[in-house]
């Protein structure tokens, strides 16, 4: 082993420092070709007899990652210097190339050229870092060619002209990606190619837009200027959030101002995408356009932007043109700062789902066609792509990635990634929902399935004789779940004790008995984070045998459980509590309806019903106590579909009904979670996984208070207790009023999140909604990974199992909890998107008239909420043609919108009759339109 000390490196960490690192060069780094005579071939990854071996340049990996992910590209060598450069430039691409390299089906080999004694090169004087790295790539390519001999062609793939020229001079085979892909004779691959931006420009100038050369967007400021601007307070940094209902309006939440900055219009947005971290410059105060932000625009693209490729669709959606200056009164209230984006600090580009804008087929088929891609999510602008397979793509949902957006083009340019399926097909659209929310719906891999216990599985004698497991098979345990529930993860029991107290047990499926830390099964579950419930399907976190059979606490079978057992007085005071692993045998798996019916049927006196009634009375007391402590009863507009079993089309929609039985089960689950949280926090004060719900700030509750004030309702939001009380008192003249107020209140609050207890101080552990000082998730390990973690923590705190290593590392646990939060949010979004999709399918055939409530007032209309279907959407009062729009004005104090002549006015929470209908203002983007009757 040869080693060599060299390497002098300068880094900047505030100041310039010289750093000296050792750099060992080795002779035991192998080439990865299985046919190599010299090298050790045990770690070889390339195929047995390739005709060509590709060496990829950094720019190819960075820009053509979608192409590399295609199976047609194979036998490639990725140099460590390339990986390093990619990692510094774009971490997500780095992760993707790493995934390709570790995929056993792909023949991608990582060659550590920087540590190989023959391929390491020293920087020459006057050579830039980039040139040095390019040279290193060429040297490595050369080495490969010499090493493998003339039997194999080693081809350097580079898009850098200079690099290619030098390589050719040095006698290395080098080609650009384009020429290489063309030589493969696979036209579909060409679509995956990202064209260098100057090419795009040229072509566009030629055949698309004569007026194109004009600069549309102002230039982004250089990074150095942005940094100094941020320092001096001229610019403000924040994440860009585009309005869901109006893609021309965006907000940047800025900490330096403490308020949201409104960015209005594409030119002010200056090529930023939703989610980008941007630098914003405030506009002078006289240009602040308050009223704009209050309008709901529904245009698809500005008219003046409708130049281009395909004739645009008839655009009948209403739109507001701000009544700038038309009413002095309005300008006077203008207080929110508007701004303009001057630079993008971090791009949030990923791939987008959508479809191509319909366009006539060009005469000569097969050639390159430019098309505009319309994202399904309206927050993103259209994306220009090139394709050779237009006829195949026009009626498909496709995935497109963004490559660049230069100043001269109105739209960003991107490239086709893959096809999902036919537009309008329910499976395709569901798939789109999953992709948009980054949900992995692939079947479980064989490695994961190999971790499952053999089927059919039964409780073994070892389990029974295990001293840590208590035998509770003789206890009358039952479960209450939604109808048709197959993944039953909780069961209950309630036995009267001789001393008049009750023994109450909550039994949770013992998932950790089957999912062991460090196994592929565990990794997969941790990655998925949660099961996702769509309207017509469920994407499991754990494989089906575990979810529906082995772990599911079904009736009349013996199952392993983790139990929380309390002794409670009839007044629901906990006398003692303990935790144990157990074996149970559920005597009944009931649905909420069944359980409720049993409790209500006074003739039934069987032991099970008595248990249910006892539990219910305990639960009511516990609930009362919780509400006294200040727990909020929040509401959401959850809807339930009845799905046709054959066609999977929705048959009916209705609000989800909550019964006493639901509340009873919920109460005991809450109690179990709190008990477990206390137990694990006691044992692991620094590394427990808990769940907190931050107290909403005044600003967050502002919209709620404004609404309440407008209808003459006083809400006290000083504490959660006060809030709960005033919510209780908010009873209007109709039964739905209270629920509506609760829904509005729920929306003002932030979401509850998982966190690692070591990251925050105890007062911050507080769960606002439940009014509990600490809380965690323990009761659904089949469908939530957080619960799996908590199960392990609890087992460790009881001394049953030792703590897996990730819990000893706070940073690691924090990253796990961040992932869980992300997955949970996505699962929720996907669920909602799925409901939206099915609502659309449902109303496509049934235009309906129904009652709705106004929840938000805007200057050209209002948002309504339809209680019956749980739908929320905009209703426009002005149409686009009346762009003068001056006949309606908004009364901010009273939250009313009035006609100028005073003949009609709408106020918040008012009931209106609306008409629901599915329209398709823009092809392939159907939406539910709500209009006043």
């Amino acid at each position, binding site marked *: 082993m040869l*080693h060599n*000390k060299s390497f002098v490196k300068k880094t900047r960490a505030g100041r310039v*420092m*010289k*750093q*000296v*690192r*050792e*750099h*060992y*060069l*080795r002779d035991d780094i192998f080439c990865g070709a299985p046919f190599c005579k010299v090298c050790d071939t045990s770690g070889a990854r390339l195929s047995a007899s390739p005709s060509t071996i590709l060496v990829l340049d950094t720019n190819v990996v960075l820009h053509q990652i979608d192409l590399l992910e295609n199976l047609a590209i194979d036998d490639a060598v990725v140099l*460590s210097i390339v990986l390093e450069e990619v990692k510094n430039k774009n971490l997500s691409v780095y992760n993707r190339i*790493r995934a390709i*390299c*570790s995929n056993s089906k792909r023949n991608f080999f*990582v060659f*550590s050229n*920087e*540590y190989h004694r023959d391929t390491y090169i020293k920087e020459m004087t006057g050579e830039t870092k980039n040139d040095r790295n390019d040279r290193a790539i060429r040297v490595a390519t050369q080495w490969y060619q010499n090493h493998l001999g003339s039997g194999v062609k080693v081809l350097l793939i580079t898009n850098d002209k200079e690099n290619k020229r030098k390589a050719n001079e040095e006698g290395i085979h080098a080609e650009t990606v384009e020429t290489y892909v063309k030589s493969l004779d696979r036209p579909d691959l060409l679509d995956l190619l990202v064209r260098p931006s100057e090419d795009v420009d040229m072509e566009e100038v030629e055949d698309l837009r004569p007026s194109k050369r004009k600069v549309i967007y102002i230039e982004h400021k250089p990074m150095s200027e942005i940094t100094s601007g941020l320092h001096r307070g001229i610019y403000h940094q924040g994440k860009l959030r585009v309005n869901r209902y109006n893609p021309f309006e965006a907000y940047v939440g800025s900490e330096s101002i403490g308020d949201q900055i409104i960015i209005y219009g594409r030119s002010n947005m200056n090529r930023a995408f939703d989610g980008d971290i941007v630098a914003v410059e405030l506009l002078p105060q006289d240009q602040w356009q308050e009223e704009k932000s209050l309008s709901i625009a529904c245009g698809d693209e500005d008219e003046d932007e409708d130049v281009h490729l395909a004739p645009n669709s008839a655009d009948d959606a209403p739109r507001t043109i701000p009544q700038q200056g038309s009413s002095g009164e309005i300008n006077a209230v203008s207080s929110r700062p508007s701004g303009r984006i001057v630079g993008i600090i971090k791009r949030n580009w990923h791939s987008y789902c959508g479809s191509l804008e319909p366009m006539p087929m060009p005469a000569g088929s097969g050639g390159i066609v430019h098309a505009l891609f319309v994202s399904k999510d309206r927050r993103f602008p259209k994306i220009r792509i090139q394709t050779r397979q237009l006829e195949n793509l026009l009626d498909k949902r496709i995935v497109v990635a963004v490559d660049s957006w230069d100043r001269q083009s109105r739209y960003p340019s991107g490239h086709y990634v893959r096809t999902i399926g036919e537009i309008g097909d329910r499976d395709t659209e569901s798939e789109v929902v999953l992709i948009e929310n980054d949900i992995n719906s692939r079947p479980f891999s064989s490695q994961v399935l190999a971790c499952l216990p053999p089927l059919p599985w039964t409780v073994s004698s070892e389990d029974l004789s295990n001293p840590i497991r208590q035998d509770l098979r003789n206890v009358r345990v039952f479960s209450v779940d939604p109808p048709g529930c197959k993944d039953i993860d909780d069961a209950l029991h309630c036995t009267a004790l001789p001393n008049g107290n009750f023994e109450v047990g909550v039994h949770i499926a013992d998932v950790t008995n089957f999912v062991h830390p460090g196994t592929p099964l565990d990794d997969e579950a941790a990655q998925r984070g949660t099961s996702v419930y769509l309207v017509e399907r469920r994407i499991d976190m754990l494989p089906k045998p575990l979810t529906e059979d082995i772990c599911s606490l079904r009736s009349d079978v013996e199952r392993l459980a983790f139990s929380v057992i309390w002794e409670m007085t009839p007044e629901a005071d906990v006398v003692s509590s303990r935790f144990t692993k157990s074996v149970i045998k559920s005597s009944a798996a009931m649905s909420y309806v069944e359980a409720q019916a049993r409790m209500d049927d006074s003739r039934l006196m069987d032991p099970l019903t008595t248990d249910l009634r006892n539990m219910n009375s305990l639960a009511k007391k516990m609930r009362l106590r919780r509400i006294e402590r200040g727990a909020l009863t929040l509401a959401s507009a959850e809807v339930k579909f009845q799905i046709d079993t054959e066609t999977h089309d929705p048959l009916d929609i209705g609000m989800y009904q909550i019964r006493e039985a639901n509340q009873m089960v919920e109460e005991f689950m809450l109690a179990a979670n709190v008990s477990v949280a206390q137990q694990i926090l006691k044992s692991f004060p620094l590394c427990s996984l808990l769940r907190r719900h931050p107290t909403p700030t005044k600003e967050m509750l502002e919209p709620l208070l404004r609404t309440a004030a407008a209808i003459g309702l006083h809400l006290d939001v000083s504490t959660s207790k006060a809030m709960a009380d005033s919510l209780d008192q908010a009873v209007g003249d109709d039964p739905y009023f209270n629920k509506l107020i609760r829904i509005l209140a729920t929306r003002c609050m932030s979401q509850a999140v998982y966190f690692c207890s070591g990251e925050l101080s105890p007062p911050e552990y507080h769960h606002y909604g439940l009014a509990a000082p600490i809380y965690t998730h323990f009761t659904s390990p089949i469908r939530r990974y957080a619960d799996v973690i908590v199960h392990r923590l609890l087992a460790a705190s009881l001394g049953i199992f*030792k*703590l897996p*290593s990730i819990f*000893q590392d706070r940073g690691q646990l924090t990253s796990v909890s961040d992932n869980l939060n992300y997955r949970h949010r996505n699962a929720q979004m996907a669920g909602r998107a799925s409901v939206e999709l099915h609502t659309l399918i449902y109303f496509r055939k049934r235009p309906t008239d129904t009652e709705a409530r106004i929840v938000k007032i805007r200057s050209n209309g209002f948002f309504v909420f339809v209680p019956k279907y749980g739908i929320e959407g905009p209703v426009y009062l002005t149409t686009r043609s009346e762009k003068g729009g001056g006949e309606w004005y908004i009364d901010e104090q009273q939250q009313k919108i009035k006609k100028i002549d005073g003949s009609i006015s709408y106020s918040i929470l008012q009931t209106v009759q609306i008409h629901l209908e599915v329209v398709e203002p823009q092809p392939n983007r159907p939406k539910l339109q709500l209009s006043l009757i």
Partner: protein
Amino acid sequence: MEYVSPEGLRLDGRRPMEMRQIRAEIGAVSKADGSAVFEMGNTKVIAAVYGPRQVQNKSQQMSDQALVRCEYSMANFSTGDRMRKPKGDRRSTEISLVIRQTMEACILTHLMPHSQIDIFVQVLQADGGTRSACINAATLALADAGIPMRDLVTSCSAGYLNSTPLLDLNYVEDSAGGADVTLGILPKLDKVTLLQMDSKLPIDILENVMQLAIEGCKAVANYIREILLENTKQLEYRRGV
């Protein structure tokens, strides 16, 4: 941060079980009774031993054994950034104590009552693992001074990063915040005289990491033995035996 690439190479090109290059030289300070320079990669320390000699402070004199004193210091130029370190700061005091205790455990002090042995170690260049390098240098210097010892003490560190046990951490790996185990052993007697750890490790992983450190210590011991043998041969040759 990735400290071990999926290809199994560390940031400086070593594999997880590999030590840095070690180099030792005996007799760097001719005025002292024994001295040595020890390098582990870019970590370079010098050690000088005076003694056994008369006890300077009579009150410390012991009638049954020798007094061992140790002073550890870092040269101001040992790290890249220019920083003035006050003499006798907590860290130096602690390391001085650690080295003294480690060396005391192997010196046959009872053979030299009423006397004093002074060990001075100074870090010339620091790049992680200074503690280990100091102990190794001190061992060599003691041997050079001809002080009777039970065995050579050798030391090596090992750590745990990216779920991989790593031998002989350098500065970058050391400051990664993972566990860092410094181990000192008497290789012939198979006894541990020093075990220190920063941060936390599960007990079963600690065993693996410790085992790795023991291997490292043994490798250092072999090298030191070679150097001493070489040195003795040189002496033999000079005396013309």
